[in-house]
């Protein structure tokens, strides 16, 4: 299913003002309905290698295999996920393996890793996979909602009652991630599915954006530039840099222009339940 004309996608990445190179990597494929963003970490240049490996693996493999997705065989445990979600998880696990093996094989890449957030659009739905502290938000009408929950020490401390989210913003521990791709032979990937409505705008971003720019400012910027995503993306990056530009900053914006149901509408399949 080709989503050209159904989705508008723009992506921007910037080194920021303090770093010497950009360890973020983004990938988009409107035909496949795929967007992905990774924030690499590691020694000299290793962060860039990790994030690029993740994005390249995802973009190539998902596009390759999307046409052939099918529900898992009867009786197999599918945990209630769609075939697209299961494909996304499988490819994210594969990219984990590729990064991990590369880091073992090449001493200069030892310990490299990367966060990842990706979204796959199909049939008026979206499957979201994420690991680490890169985020997905959704602007629906006037409200911005954070869809992913960070895998960070800070998020755990918030859940345990040591911090409020407001206090967390000023803490020094905010950049410690508890999960990343390429660090271990196995990785636990969070998968979510959600409904896509016309005019929804999805934002994927690295922490270089949400550490530097408040959610309310992000909301206003996207809302005010909803008809010009290119402008919205550039303004978000500009704001991160105006506020200090401490980190690489990447954003991907996806707007749902038109309904994109599969041939048999997904709710036709399920709503006869009443």
């Amino acid at each position, binding site marked *: 299913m080709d989503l050209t004309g159904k989705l508008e996608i723009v992506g921007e990445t910037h080194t920021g003002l303090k770093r010497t190179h950009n360890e973020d990597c983004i990938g988009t494929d409107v035909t496949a309905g795929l967007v992905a963003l990774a924030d690499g970490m590691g*020694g000299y240049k290793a962060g860039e290698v990790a994030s690029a490996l993740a994005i390249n693996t995802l973009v190539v493999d998902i596009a390759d295999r999307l046409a052939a997705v099918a529900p898992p065989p009867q009786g197999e445990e599918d945990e209630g996920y769609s075939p697209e979600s299961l494909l996304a998880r499988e490819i994210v696990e594969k990219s984990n393996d590729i990064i991990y093996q590369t880091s073992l094989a090449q001493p200069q890449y030892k310990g490299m890793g990367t966060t990842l957030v990706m979204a796959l659009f199909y049939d008026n*739905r979206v499957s979201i996979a994420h690991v680490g502290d890169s985020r997905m938000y959704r602007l629906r009408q006037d409200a911005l909602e954070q*869809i992913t929950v960070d895998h960070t020490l800070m998020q755990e401390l918030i859940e345990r009652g040591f911090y409020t989210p407001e206090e967390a913003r000023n803490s020094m521990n905010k950049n410690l991630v*508890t999960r990343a791709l390429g660090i271990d032979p196995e990785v636990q990937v969070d998968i979510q599915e959600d409904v896509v409505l016309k005019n929804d705008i999805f934002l994927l971003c690295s922490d270089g954006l949400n550490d530097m720019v408040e959610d309310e400012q992000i909301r206003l910027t996207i809302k005010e530039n909803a008809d010009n995503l290119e402008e919205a993306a550039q303004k978000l990056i500009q704001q991160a840099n105006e506020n200090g530009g401490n*980190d690489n900053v990447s954003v991907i914006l996806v707007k749902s222009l038109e309904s994109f149901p599969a041939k048999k509408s997904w709710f036709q399949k399920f709503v006869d339940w*009443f």
Partner: protein
Amino acid sequence: MTAKLILTHDGNTIGEFELNKEQMTIGRKPDNDIQIDNLAVSGQHAKIITILNDSFLEDMNSTNGTYVNGSLVKKHALQDGDSVTIGKHQLRYINKEASSGSDDFEKTMIIRPDAVGMPATAGSQTVERQMAEVNKKVEAQIGKPAGQPAPSGRGNETARLQVLSGANSGKELALTKALTTIGRPGQQVAAITRRPQGYFIIHVEGGDGSFPTINGKQIGTQAHSLNDHDIIEVAGVKMEFFLG
């Protein structure tokens, strides 16, 4: 520089303690790392957990409580200059690292034994142990494993809907999918999604501009979290939501 606590009584400094261990206890009994021999102090009064450059204070159900800058606290993330009052003693928290904002610390790091770029002051194995400690504590409090947000909603429990009205009254639908849709096309359709934080209901379409309701209130276009025993109504059918 390691963070430290300066112990004073009536304005006189009587001790100085470096927070160089992952966990330090404060209390009246001699086996505490920081002993305050005064009857206003409980045997085991409070403890301080230190993770990299930040420290966290937790009251251990003391008799007279623990105060930070005048406010009673159970748990508190310490900040440079905080004044902790235990009985008639005060502990001032000094931590120049946490407020310096050095560029290096802005870098994203992974909490792993072999991670590159871990601060030299805290071996990453220490952090692992600290995380294990924090996790154990949380498990004790909330009765379920911490540090692993359940991939499929809350724990292993499967949420379900029970129909309360209409021809299918009494019928149950187990919410086993990551995304379940309910309703009647053209009239009203809603979706229930499973997220790490729990279950959410989302309006999908309403022929006459109407929205589903939770406990009698229309939900609008935003996702709403579902709580155990919430009553939802979609396309004129009332249902009760059960978490497990």
